[in-house]
């Protein structure tokens, strides 16, 4: 598609295409924060629409919103709290995976902390399901482990 190369580097925007075919624009300075995108720009040039196979139209706008605030230095605790307030655990997980794929460090760290906060009070079964972990311990192995690590389970409610 015909792309006009912008003359001034400060207001340059990069086109990103999600895995489900939608196109979004971001500032070049925001793209710099996502190392994967930057690498693709370095390889393919900044006039081309950058394809992101593993990121979809549901989550990319949120990520763009975060980095829009980041380049103006406006990321505060309040903004971050608002950012995740209405997201459920799965939505955060999707964003987290996207941030990991995009190699977007600041967002990745923030979402890691948020996931850790959400999982802290959850049961073992919930965490297994959340991470898609299949329990490959036999009941005997599991109870032996629990006994060995009793010092870390002390004082915690047993899960149902």
């Amino acid at each position, binding site marked *: 598609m015909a792309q006009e190369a912008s003359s001034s580097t400060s207001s340059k925007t990069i086109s990103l295409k999600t895995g*489900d075919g939608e196109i979004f624009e971001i500032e070049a300075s925001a793209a710099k924060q996502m190392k994967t995108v930057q690498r693709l720009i370095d390889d393919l040039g900044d006039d081309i629409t950058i394809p992101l*196979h593993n990121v979809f139209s549901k989550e990319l706008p949120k990520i763009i919103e975060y980095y829009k605030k980041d380049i103006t230095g406006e990321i505060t605790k309040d903004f971050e709290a608002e950012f995740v307030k209405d997201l459920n655990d799965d939505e955060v997980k999707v964003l987290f*995976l996207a941030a990991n794929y995009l190699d977007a460090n600041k967002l990745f760290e923030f979402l890691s902390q948020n996931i850790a906060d959400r999982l802290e009070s959850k049961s073992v079964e919930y965490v297994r399901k959340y*991470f*898609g972990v299949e329990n490959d311990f036999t009941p005997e192995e599991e109870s032996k482990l629990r006994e060995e690590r009793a010092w870390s389970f002390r004082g915690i409610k047993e899960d149902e």
Partner: protein
Amino acid sequence: MAESSSSNKLQKPETKIQDRISDLPDCVLTRILSFLPTKISVQTSILSSRWQHLWQHLSVLDFKDDSHYYHYHHSERFKSFAVMVNGVLNLLRNPRGIKKMTLECAYVFSHDQFRRVSVDTWVRSVIGPYLEELNLTLNEDDQGSYFKLPQTLFTSHNLVSLSLAGGISVRVLSSTTVRLPSLKKMIINIGLVEVPSLNALLYGCPIIEVLDLHFRPVCFDKVCVPPSLKRLRIGTKTDVGASLEIDAPDLECLIVRKITFGNVFSMYNLHNVAAAYLDVFARSTGSVISLHDLLNALSGIKHLMLSRSTTKLLLGEPPDLLFGEFRYLIHLDLKFPWFNSNSLLSLLHKCPLLQVLIIQNVKFKEQRPILGCAPQPSVPNCLVSHLNFIQFKGCQGYEDELFFIEYVLQNGLVLETMNVADISLDLQTKYDLLKRLFNVRKACEMCQFTFDTAVYPKKQLCLLKYPK
């Protein structure tokens, strides 16, 4: 591209996401664990065989004990906590490779040898060439038991951030040369400190940028602050106070509490400080001159807040303000021990570009001195061209206060908001006062005169926000 998305439609989206999580490499999963309290991370060992040993690769530790919040069985609970910490340290794959440790527990019961040895062992076990961040909070008791930091901490080559709170003694032995070449941030909030030790510690931090210091000095002394600082917050906890030696050309933010001045003024190169909060007190009559010298040094200041104790030192006769103009000051926030319109107007003469003025009367034990009321020669420049927001909290209805409010309403050509809040008067007097003020002919047509509830300027200058 279209093909791959249609084949994905056949799979349930949930399953797809979970596959992707289990596809994540161990190091990414360990990174998530590093944000959890370590005790919880250890529990992930029962998730599956893959997770059994993941936590052991952690390089970030977070131990918080809450046993001191319980009324009974402190020792037993602390012992459980100690067993957990020791268990973790024993099973870590690379205990010497710890990059960050946060440890919070009580350091009560000074005769508790087990507790002292435990904390000492834990801190020593992470001090090493890889340690980048150490956060130690030892909740103290009334007996003032203090944990002595190992001297090896003071030569941590890669330490970037250090936070010490509670019952910790920062004592640098004369045989120790402090060398913290990577330290950028230090937060200390403890009890008794010998200032020479503190100075020895600061001397060994050549690139430190953020310093947050709250302590009780053993006796009055001078704290020598490193020249590389960008943000400084320093406060003493008693009336003993301390003086400061600062020569910090990169300093942007300065917050001082219960600080006073020494015999020789030693605060230079503060022209880059954009925001400052000053709570200083007078130790001698020479202190007033020193405050003027300090205000003179803050020539580039944009946002200034003065406590009641500081403002008191400025409430003299007009010719007594011996410092230059604040050519860049936009926001001024003053707390007054007693109101004096003359002094306030003299101060306003020093702030030609001021846009926001916030003043608050704070009740003071001392008596209002009776000062002369020399008429102002001219209207302060800021009132004519820049001052658009004034808030006056704690108006007590004195004639002098009313004179000031009328003066600014009559002369403030761009005064859009005049807010008089927290008026401590009976209803009738308040009514009369407000009636009088409403009838004043306002220089600015758009002026909104509001009272009772405090309002805030639309564009709040947040330069004094201090990073955690």
